[in-house]
């Protein structure tokens, strides 16, 4: 049932190909439609409902939630906060992940498997537990503060958490594994021989890095950046807990409207807003990628 060598319509096996194509597409697409497309359509519908019940079963249509979202300056600020958070997290996560990804891509170490696994391990810890880990490190009486005080570098407490700094740091760490994975798969074009060729042409380590390694890995870096950005602006648990409730981003607002105030239409509208943000970022990203490739 392989489509193996049936790349074009005129091919000898083309007769079978239309049915075959359907067979190939159907199972996966069905699953995606049920668990992704339909929920998304519901989301759209819900965002135009007026009541909780309407959000589930139809009923009247109103743009009430959208006008709330669009005309409330608070949501504009939240959107701005979200973008800033996403940007900061993306930039730092990418910068910090890059060396690890590079290291993993090249190391010949016996422990490569373990090291790769360790780089991905943070993904598998409950976010609540991991957040608690960060509280221990960054808290007022946490590892860093007590170390600093122990060394008499400061006498007061340095506020490292329960603010957007804490949220950013924790998000960076939490999303780094994604960045590392994305970069690793994008580092395919790196090739030791290219570096050798550059060395033969007189490039020292620094220049090899800036002129060969970096440009070649840039698509992977961009993908990683995009992924982290998107995950960061849609996160809610970490900003909520690490931000000490002071960090208001779209994710936390969606969560809040959906589970605390039970305003599902508004939650849906905010989600749609988030999706619009994604889509524009992705479009920009694709532009950038195309520009890189030509």
């Amino acid at each position, binding site marked *: 049932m392989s489509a193996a060598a049936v790349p074009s319509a005129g091919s000898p096996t083309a007769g079978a190909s239309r049915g075959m194509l359907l067979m*190939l597409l159907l199972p996966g*697409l069905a699953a995606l439609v049920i*668990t992704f497309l339909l929920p998304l359509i519901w989301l759209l519908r*819900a965002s135009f409902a007026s009541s909780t019940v309407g959000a589930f079963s139809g009923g009247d249509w109103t743009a009430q939630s959208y006008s709330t979202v669009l005309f409330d300056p608070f949501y504009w600020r939240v959107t701005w906060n979200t973008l800033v958070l996403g940007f900061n997290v993306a930039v730092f996560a990418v910068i910090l992940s890059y*060396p690890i990804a590079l290291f993993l891509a090249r190391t010949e170490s016996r422990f490569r*498997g373990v090291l790769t696994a*360790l780089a991905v391990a943070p993904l598998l810890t*409950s976010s609540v537990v991991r957040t608690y880990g960060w509280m221990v*490190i960054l808290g007022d009486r946490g590892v860093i503060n007590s170390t600093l005080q122990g060394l008499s570098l400061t006498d007061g407490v340095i506020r490292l958490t329960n603010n957007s700094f804490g949220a950013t740091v924790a998000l960076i760490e939490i999303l780094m594994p994604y960045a590392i994975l994305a970069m690793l798969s994008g580092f395919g074009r790196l090739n030791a021989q290219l570096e050798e060729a550059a060395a033969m042409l007189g490039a020292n380590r620094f220049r090899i890095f800036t002129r060969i390694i970096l440009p070649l890995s840039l698509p992977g870096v961009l993908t990683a950046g995009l992924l982290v950005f998107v995950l960061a602006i849609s996160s809610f648990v970490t900003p909520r807990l690490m931000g000490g409730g002071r960090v208001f981003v779209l994710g936390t607002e969606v969560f809040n409207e959906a589970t605390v105030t039970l305003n599902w239409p508004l939650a849906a509208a905010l989600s749609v807003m988030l999706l619009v943000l994604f889509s524009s970022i992705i479009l920009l990203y694709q532009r950038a990628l195309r520009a890189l490739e030509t």
Partner: protein
Amino acid sequence: MQGNQLLGRIAWNALITLLYLFLLAPIIVVFIISFDTRQYLAFPPESLSFGSYVKVFQNIKFISAFWRSLIIGAIVGIVAVSAGMLLSLALARYRFRGKAAVNFLILAPFLVPHIVLAVGVMLVIAPLGLLDSYPGIVLAHLGITIPYTVRTIMMSLMAVDIRVEEAALVHGAPPRMVFWRITLPLVRPGLIAGGVIAFLISFDEATISLFIVSVKASTLPTEIYHYLEYSTDPQIAALSVILILISVGVVVAVERLVGLRRAL
């Protein structure tokens, strides 16, 4: 080796070590806490014991949820890989109208926050009578795992030289045989890697699961979530450590077997 080259190596290794330390810092803390004897999370531990681990293994809810998660994860892994394999074949080997749309549909779930999806998924699944059932949770997890399996399998598939498949055709293998004898074995690393990732995601997913399951099909993450609702004690840390060890074990084994990085 020249002196400054050696220096560069040392600096590089130090940098990597620091970054790893940052990446693993909260996990290290969690690891330490997991041995605390007190009944709440605090640092540093007062005294150390394996008590929390013992309790985790005695907690019937955790244990049964663990097996459920394992089964669900395995099914999700297998189904997601199968569907992903077929989708990847269609995308990698066919030109067809609407391919861009299909591609988008596969990419998009990466980018839509689970919290946004969760209620919608519940709503779609509920009328099918699948709430709190194995098929329901499996279906819900397929949407978020298929994108990963498609991605890894595609990577493997791209790496397969089409000419090899052509060679099989020329030498008398009908397309069905080409698939079973050539294509499938060649993308095995991608299949395994995709399966493992799908498994891990399903095994770890809480947000959507919370909306789908309650008692019968409750998974380990949802049990953890409920547990955290009324108690935060080192059991949670111990459980996290156990899960990490299991996952690291799986990842290492797969890396050994097929080279996960190639497929990622």
